[in-house]
């Protein structure tokens, strides 16, 4: 993973802060942060391609995380890993990436219902980044419904 992630305080749900040196790395870090909440697995597994489109950058991040949540629920466990190769904004927004094979649910992992639009922030590198975000990083905050 090329970026990083951590959880911020939220009364009822979880707020994920993710960052990366590029937009692709940010999306990948957000995916990895979600997988950490769901219960990380050491199993490398195989890879499958994922292609997504959305109206805009924020919608694309929600769609990416909700794709992982859906795959975890439908396939009997969260993907063992995930990655993002391309994020493009050309009229709409699109993502090309991959997810690992499903790994068994681990005890202590959370059932994430969905990624939400509430308070959703996706920002290019700026001076106003939250504490802990390396200088020059893309960053995002997204609330996950638990």
């Amino acid at each position, binding site marked *: 993973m090329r970026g990083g992630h951590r*959880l*911020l*305080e*939220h*009364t*009822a*749900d*979880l*707020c994920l802060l993710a960052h990366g040196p590029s937009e692709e790395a940010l999306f990948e870090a957000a995916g990895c942060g979600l997988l950490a909440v769901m*219960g990380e697995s050491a199993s490398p597994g195989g890879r499958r391609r994922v292609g997504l489109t959305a*109206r805009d950058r*924020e*919608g694309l991040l929600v*769609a990416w995380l*909700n794709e992982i*949540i*859906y795959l*975890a*629920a*439908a396939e*009997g*466990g969260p993907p063992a890993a995930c990655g993002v190769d391309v994020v493009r904004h050309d009229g709409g927004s699109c993502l090309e990436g991959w997810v690992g094979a499903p790994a068994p*649910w681990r*005890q*202590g*992992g*959370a*059932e994430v*219902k*969905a990624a*939400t*639009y*509430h*308070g*959703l922030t996706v920002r290019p590198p700026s001076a106003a980044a939250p504490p802990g975000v390396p200088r020059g990083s893309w960053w995002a*905050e997204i*609330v996950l*419904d*638990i």
Partner: protein
Amino acid sequence: MAEGWAGPLETAGVNRWRLPRSYKDGMNVPGLIYADSELLEQIRADQALEQVANVACLPGILGHSLAMPDIHWGYGFPIGGVAATDFRQGVLSPGGVGFDINCGMHLLRTGLGLADVAGRVGRIMDELYASIPSGVGVSGSLKLSPAELDGVLEQGATWVARRHGADAADLEFMEERGRLAGADPEKVSSRAKKRARDQLGTLGSGNHFVEVQAVEELFDKAAAQAFGLQEGSILVMIHSGSRGLGHQVCTDYLETMNEAIVRYGIKLPDRQLACAPAGSPEGKDYFGAMAAAANFGWANRLYLGHLARQALARALGTAPRELGVSVLYDLGHNIVKPEEHVVEGKPRRLWVHRKGATRAFGPGHPDLPAAYREVGQPVLVPGDMGTHSYVLVGTSAAMAESFGSTCHGAGRQMSRAAAKRAIRGEELHRRLEGQGIAVRAKSMAGLAEEAPEAYKDVSRVVEVAEGAGLSRRVARLRPLGVMKG
């Protein structure tokens, strides 16, 4: 993200605070928050009141953007939020229902008393734990064919009663008789259906639970008698919802609604509130799918109750029918429904969104079962696993002021992460067992997240609701055994 809220509030009567329309551009109505000064201090600690103001911006919202005493910060709507929109001019908002569509409560009364379960609660909890699939990613014993799933989505709890021998008389004691009209399985995506095929009869995780409880104190003898409650009576309370199917329906339609707000030129302060006119194709499709998911929720809880009866009978070495078990009531607290209420002196048909809020219809309402009509609707309010839960009754005042709504629980005051930092699951387990509460949990971390300290004082919440006239206390329930997913 967890900064406090310092906006303006005006006193508006007993346990009432008004958030004026002038607070924020776009508010169509004021907010109305039911709280005393102590609860208000807790409520101001995060952004729940900003969400009350945001909800007030929904097109066609009527009266107030309401916040019940257990309000806390959610996403889009606050948890504990109620919003009614005009049936023709108003909107439907999936964010006003949430991802766990028709998450709700199911309360079984039994013919058992404390003496009947003395020394046997551990065995009962073992049987419940073995019989009811719970936790993250578990499957139920029922594998539904596509046609069977469509049957569940259309018929709700009725399907379970017909196919699995649940007592049809219990349907009378479920909100909407366990089947919301207007459900359209064709509006539910194949993804949502795929998630549901083995989840009927599963509890889930997080704050979902099964508790064995005893009636500790009665407050309203007449209502208690109507509800069949006596001091020392043993009850089984179940909290669950529509599982992954409901989550996916909300996810799918949030995307639909985010397109719709562009098409219909709707401006909102939070995309999670995305909505469409109720009469638009998007609005109609959402309601058809939401109602189908709600029906899955009712079917799920009735089936969980069916499993609980069998487990109870096995633990006590008798037949289920010997236990005198019946549904006291079942209700949803995440739902939007068409209802008729009086607004400014005139009866109007409305869409009432309740997100972490409970319907609390007062005496005489025609939708209530005949046995309860004289006293009002039972309201089931879980507290936390270490203290109490309550049975309340709806009031005429709630009908007049809150679209027949009241609180739904204690309301969180501590984040999950903070709870896990402050409390170790193993220690909590020991502490609860020391209090005489038998605990069965899949995950000690999950148990810590749901620790009593993470929640507000449910007794204060229900007292504030009573002080405001939204509901009255009927019975306080004490947990004897707790099962968490």
